[in-house]
């Protein structure tokens, strides 16, 4: 099947697609399809979802606050899986780094006079790394995050289409 959407080799879409496909093939290589117990399936679903998010975050690299936050979360999670102690340690240091990078945005009370506190808080929970942003940056990051999510969904749909035909 043709992939007509890969027109620009350096676009976000193509970067994400290549990474995601690579991850998918890796996952498929790991487990046979025949396993059908719920937990197995659930685990696999989780793995795929994580792979999707990870590949997305990696294609964005560290250019965005949310991608950095997501990468940090993924790394800490993987560390935690391997070794609980080291995960905690790395988690703490990473969190310190994150907090340092968004210097002073956390401590500032966000009643900034614009009046969107509740919605802004909810948005902060949705966007990864949103707690450490002021409203201005939050809106910026949300825009980019939405763009990346739509790309992700499109690509995954196309892949599902391709495979399920």
């Amino acid at each position, binding site marked *: 099947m043709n992939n007509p959407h890969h027109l620009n080799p350096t676009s976000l879409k193509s970067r994400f697609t290549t990474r995601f496909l690579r991850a998918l093939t890796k996952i498929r290589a790991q487990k046979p399809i025949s396993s059908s117990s719920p937990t197995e399936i659930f685990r696999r*679903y989780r793995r*795929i979802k994580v792979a*999707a998010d990870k590949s997305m975050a990696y294609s964005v690299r560290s250019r965005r606050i949310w991608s950095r936050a997501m990468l940090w979360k993924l790394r800490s999670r993987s560390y935690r899986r391997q070794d609980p102690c080291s995960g905690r340690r790395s988690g703490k240091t990473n969190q310190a780094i994150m907090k340092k990078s968004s210097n002073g945005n956390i401590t500032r009370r966000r009643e900034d006079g614009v009046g969107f506190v509740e919605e802004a808080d909810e948005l902060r929970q949705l*966007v990864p790394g949103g707690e450490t942003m002021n409203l201005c940056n939050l809106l*910026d990051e949300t825009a980019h995050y*939405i763009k990346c*999510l739509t790309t992700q969904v499109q690509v995954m749909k196309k892949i599902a289409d391709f495979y*399920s035909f």
Partner: protein
Amino acid sequence: MNSLLSPTQQIPLQDLQPNGNSGTHQAQIHNPQFDPTSSHDDFLDQMLSTLPSCSWSDLKSPWDPPKSDETPPSNPDNNVGFHYDEILASKLRQHQINGGGGGTTAAMKMMMQQQMMLPGRPIAAAGGGGLTMPLHNDIVDGSSFKSPNQQVDVTSHYLNLVGRVPCKLCTTVSVLDLCMGLIISHRTSLSIFTILRHTFFSLLHFPQRITKTLNGLMIHIQLFTSILFIVQGGNMQTQSFGATAGTVMNQSQASGSTTGGAPAQPKQRVRARRGQATDPHSIAERLRRERIAERMKALQELVPNANKTDKASMLDEIIDYVKFLQLQVKVLSMSRLGGAAAVAPLVADMPSEGGDCVQTTAGGGGSLQRNSNGNQPSSNNDSLTVTEHQVAKLMEEDMGSAMQYLQGKGLCLMPISLATAISTATCHSRNPMINKGSSSNHPLLQSNGEGPSSPSMSVLTVQSATMGNGGLDGSAKDAASVSKP
């Protein structure tokens, strides 16, 4: 403009007028300036008359001696300005020395000497008449005034001097801007402010003098600064006005907005014109708000259904859209578990046995909550048949209980015709998957809310169909396919 004045305010003006009885030139002094038709005069009118009438009567006494000692004027215009200036200067001096009482002749004479020491003043050829350029001698006079009681008089003097400034484009602007600030700080009425502005604009029409008077004007402004300092009785204003004067001279125009912020009293803070912020804080706030607005606009284009009624609802839309996208990713990743093989065969067509046959479409995965619990109602073939039989039994007894049983299992009924229509409508090529449905028992089903917008999966379309049905179908007598809602 006279209508702006209260009758009481006009009284001191009239008190002033009879003092010009010495000669024609005195009349010349007053008349052109008090002529209501000319804009200058209006300006001066307003200036002088809105001042609280504290001691205009005292003006009368000191005026007579200076008149007699006037030097014969070489130029009528010069005389006019000279006299008026001198008069007010003397008045101020008097008040300074005596604190509002009668003036001493010694002070008067000193004043006169100072006045007479003025070198040739540049004469304003302004059409308004009576405008001359006071020079640095006036500064000496001004700086010597130390009494805080002179609020009224200083203001009047200052206003008078300002009124006689020739119309340079830049400098006049700056001077009058300074005037505005001073006047406002003096708690005079706002009408003065508007009048001053009006006058300022009218003054612009006059011919311009250039550098000669510029220096004098600069000094003039410093004089006013010092006067204001005296009047306010505080140190802060001097510095602020000194700075303002400096900046005013440096800038060519448009210093009006900054002078609005110079006076310290918060009551007198006048919103600078045309919505300009006078505060660095408010400027930063405005900038921030603008940035947020433009980001909201960008977001609005990304999110569908962007009928932006107001910002809060727009934010809610954005939040919902982000949630929806995240949900879509989750669902799609679930559907991907099969990989290259049939993803999630949700449609398991049993061969129809006539109209009363029940087709079971097994669905697994269910809602995401169920998935997160790791508990999925997996249905393989055996369980399907079991369910089927169960449902059939229940339907014989009571439709309601059958439906409840189905719902408890997370399934629902839909007519076969609809199910087949949907499954064929999506893609005929999906039939192989349907056939394979029974073999691979992936009990996954996407329960996404998007409905027909994702026709890529037959699973999804069946899903959407069932969701559209709501799982209920009255025509249970027809062959119904049970599918998971």
